[in-house]
């Protein structure tokens, strides 16, 4: 078997992915193992995990591929400093040591991290957007498709259109730095008091509570659209070199004051700004999707890049765009680019230095449901629990499901850790916290008392794929929780009088109030037996007991924590939050029976 290792990192969301004869064997984000959210360090733990999962060593690798061209990115960085001068002195002094500290000599760094790597094993470099495009198209079920990748910035490109056919990807056109939809969204994220490169989804969750009152100002002064779907940012309002802020005094004056600090309360203005930038982003994405269709002629679209995690925009592309089918890489951010780099090297032509392997698209897709991470054996789970002094019962899968379903039906919150860990930002039923979506109090209870996060944050429903259309207006499958769809009219409950702002949270809008957002939408995960058999069986059992084939599914972590990876992480999180029941591997644990009131946490908390 020929193995290719793909790597991403040193900016944010480091990851490693391993292919064996073109099949995705493993993919892991560094943050899950290092316990530091959005960990940008070189993915040494993720590499080790991938090799261990496949049972190989570095000496067995046939190629290693990195997701960026470091020297090209460094030259862009220098050119931008030259173009931005006399501004940018502090950013320059912060950025250069990072580059000189090992980012330029990546070959050396990769070889040092992979002792035993054969001298003849090539270390390859894709461009950033090639890695994203490859992660979007090559695992998709399509033989040909338009590919749209949108993120902050790679080397120069921020947005790119490509055409995928067979095993080949042909770049068509791109929009370059500083004109970046990702940077624009991140600027508003930072301005509203959330962390760049991790708080964007909070801004998206906040948007439905506001009014689009700033859309005109954003369109008139901050971003201009061309008829051909491209856009330009007005740099008089932005500071694209300040990674943590991105906005300047002029921006603050135009949008009503200084940036919100994370600990400050959210004002109506922040909600309105969130809504407004969301509207503009959706409009931009729809224009880009139409352009991608025009330039490629395809009716199938593959999406990746950080902006492709904007599931509201994705839902609109699916419903309103010219495409008949859309496939989105579940790890659409930079972590997924590790997988893209490996796939690009595997299928890349010999002239370019690739392995030139042919491609046969899988009938669903090649992502194996996104379950590409490590899994602990039942014995390892029990050993971890024993070392922590936990009290548990070991059960067969059937009995475990029955006990979990009974707990859920009683209104309890359940931590659910089964099988291989997910790759990508979403928990898809292997590292999840579950609850009953019919309970109107469940959203605020899970937000405030279990996950310790903002009360406005919505929860997603996991629904049996075969019954999804009864509950959601999806028009297709959404196995990776990347599409927002309206809750079906038949499930809606009329609201007598619409409340204002965050008070809208308390109003019941459907038969599934805990997963129905204030605009009547939901970020849906459809669960099918082929991709996700354990979770499918659990939903079936919940349906048999309650008649409801839907569960709340949120990632198993608390605020600032990466999603749990191991039984130990899960037990610590279980004890330190108010999760009632934990089902990890074959073990069933109840809060009341545990000897601990709290445990030292195993992660480095990330501020907002």
């Amino acid at each position: 078997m020929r193995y290719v290792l793909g790597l991403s990192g040193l900016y944010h969301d480091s990851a490693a992915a391993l292919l064996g004869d073109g099949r995705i064997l493993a993919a892991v984000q560094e943050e899950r193992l290092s316990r530091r959210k959005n960990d940008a360090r070189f993915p040494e733990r993720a590499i080790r995990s991938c090799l261990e999962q496949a049972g190989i060593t570095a000496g067995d690798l046939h190629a290693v591929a990195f997701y960026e061209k470091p020297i090209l990115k460094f030259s862009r960085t220098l050119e931008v400093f030259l173009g931005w001068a006399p501004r940018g002195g502090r950013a320059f002094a912060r950025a250069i040591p990072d580059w000189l500290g090992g980012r330029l000599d990546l070959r050396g760094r990769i070889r040092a991290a992979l002792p035993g790597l054969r001298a003849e094993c090539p270390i390859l470099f894709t461009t950033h957007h090639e890695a994203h495009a490859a992660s979007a198209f090559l695992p998709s079920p399509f033989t040909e498709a338009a590919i749209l990748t949108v993120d902050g910035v790679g080397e120069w490109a921020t947005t790119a259109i490509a055409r995928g056919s067979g095993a080949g990807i042909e770049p068509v056109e791109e929009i370059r730095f500083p004109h970046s939809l990702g940077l624009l969204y991140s600027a508003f994220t930072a301005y509203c008091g959330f962390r760049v490169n991790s708080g964007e989804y909070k801004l998206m969750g906040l948007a439905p509570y506001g009014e689009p009152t700033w859309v005109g100002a954003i369109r008139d002064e901050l971003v201009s659209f061309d008829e051909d779907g491209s856009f330009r940012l007005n740099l008089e309002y932005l500071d694209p070199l300040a990674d943590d802020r991105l906005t300047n005094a002029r921006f603050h004056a135009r949008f009503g004051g200084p940036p919100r600090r994370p600990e400050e309360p959210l004002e109506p203005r922040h909600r309105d700004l969130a809504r407004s930038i969301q509207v503009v982003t959706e409009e931009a994405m729809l224009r880009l999707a139409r352009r991608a269709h025009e330039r490629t002629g395809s009716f199938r679209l593959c999406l990746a890049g950080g902006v492709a995690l904007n599931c509201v925009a994705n839902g609109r592309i699916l419903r309103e765009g010219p495409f008949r089918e859309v496939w989105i890489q579940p790890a659409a951010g930079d972590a997924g680019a590790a997988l893209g780099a490996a796939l690009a090297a595997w299928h890349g032509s010999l002239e370019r230095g690739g392995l030139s392997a042919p491609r046969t698209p899988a009938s669903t897709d090649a992502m194996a449901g996104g379950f590409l991470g490590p899994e602990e054996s039942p014995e390892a789970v029990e050993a971890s629990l024993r070392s922590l002094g936990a009290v548990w019962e070991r059960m067969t899968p059937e009995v475990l499901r029955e006990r979990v379903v009974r707990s859920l039906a009683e209104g309890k919150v359940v931590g659910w850790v089964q099988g291989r860990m997910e790759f990508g930002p979403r928990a898809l039923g292997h590292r999840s916290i579950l609850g009953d979506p019919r309970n109107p109090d469940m959203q605020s209870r899970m937000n405030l008392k279990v996950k310790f996060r903002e009360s406005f944050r919505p929860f997603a429903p996991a629904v049996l794929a075969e019954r999804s259309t009864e509950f959601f207006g999806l028009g297709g499958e959404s196995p990776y929780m990347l599409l927002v769809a309206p809750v079906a009219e038949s499930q809606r409950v009329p609201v007598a009088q619409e409340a204002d702002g965050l008070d809208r949270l308390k109003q019941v809008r459907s038969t599934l109030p805990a997963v129905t957002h204030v605009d009547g939408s939901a970020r849906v995960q459809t669960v099918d037996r082929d991709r996700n058999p354990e979770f499918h069986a659990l939903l079936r059992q919940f349906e048999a007991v309650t008649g409801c084939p839907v569960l709340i599914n949120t990632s198993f972590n608390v605020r600032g924590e990466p999603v749990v990876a191991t039984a130990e992480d899960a037990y610590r999180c279980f004890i330190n939050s108010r999760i009632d029941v934990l089902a990890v591997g074959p073990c069933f644990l109840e809060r009341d029976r545990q000897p601990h009131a709290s445990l030292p946490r195993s992660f480095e908390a990330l501020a907002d």
Partner: protein
Amino acid sequence: MNAPPAHRSLRERFAIGASLLPPVALLLLASRWGWVGIPARVCLLAMPGVIGLGMGFPEVFAPWYRGFSRVRSWLGGRLVFGLLLGIHGLVVIPMGFFMRVLGQRPIDGARSGSSWVRSKGYGSLRDPF
């Protein structure tokens, strides 16, 4: 029960020993300027002995070494930051200015018109540039 002392490589022992040099060097300077009564030659001769002391008893001087390393990295970080700010002011700003005078604009700041750029291909996978 005390934990057994960690094994320390020769390199690590030398680093601990060398970390004891700055105080001796300060003493040397003070002696040259006549602030202390110790002859400068004594300070110079003491230096190899101080290094040897640190190498011979690394566990004793380990806490000092940790503190010294923290101060060194804090000071180093600020020195590098200042140096790079200077390079920005003396090199980057003038170069950026001349590029603009010569009509070169690395950042496309135009407000209107299409921003699409035709792709030139992905290039070789072997090249990091």
